[in-house]
């Protein structure tokens, strides 16, 4: 699943560590999500969406998942 988390984080001027702190996850975990190596669970996806004040589908794109 693709996502634009890196772009959104860049717009806010946050580092991976700063984003990780706000989500209670490690910097390495932020990196894994940004690079698409890990697809977050629904609760974490909601947490990310709430942080950026966006909808989940505006951050994560599952169109290539099928």
């Amino acid at each position, binding site marked *: 699943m693709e996502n634009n988390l890196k772009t959104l984080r860049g717009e806010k001027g946050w580092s991976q560590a700063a984003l*990780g*702190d706000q989500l*209670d*996850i*490690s910097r*390495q*975990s932020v*990196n*894994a*999500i940004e690079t698409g*190596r*890990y697809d*977050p*669970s629904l609760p*974490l996806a909601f947490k990310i969406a709430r942080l950026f004040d966006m909808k989940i589908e505006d951050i994560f794109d599952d169109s290539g998942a099928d």
Partner: protein
Amino acid sequence: MKPKQANKRYFSAMLGSSLGYLGSVFGVSFLHDKLVDGSIPGILLSLIPGIFICLMLLSVWRYLKDVDEVVRHELIQAMMAGLFALLALSGGWGLVELFNDSLPRLPVFFAFPVFFLTYGLVTAIRYKRCV
């Protein structure tokens, strides 16, 4: 729990139980020679390092619950690799032992280091990809 807190808790618990394990192995090795092989005190004494092994496993269990889902996913994958290495060794070599009486027997003790060495190695490799 914050990732740094979880790591700190895990490493301090692991360090304590590892030191306890090493100390008890040396202590038991020293004292066991003075006891009769197979005696009740000898068996009870040799169980002591196992207590520290259980503490190590408990700290791994607690760490799995403390870390975030991404790290947990990576750790479980590494544990699966450790489990498969152990099953491959015990199944593969186990059959060789069954069919050949003259070959040396692999002590069951080695299950623990085989699992943890594979688990540690795979965790390190997978972690490097995340840095």
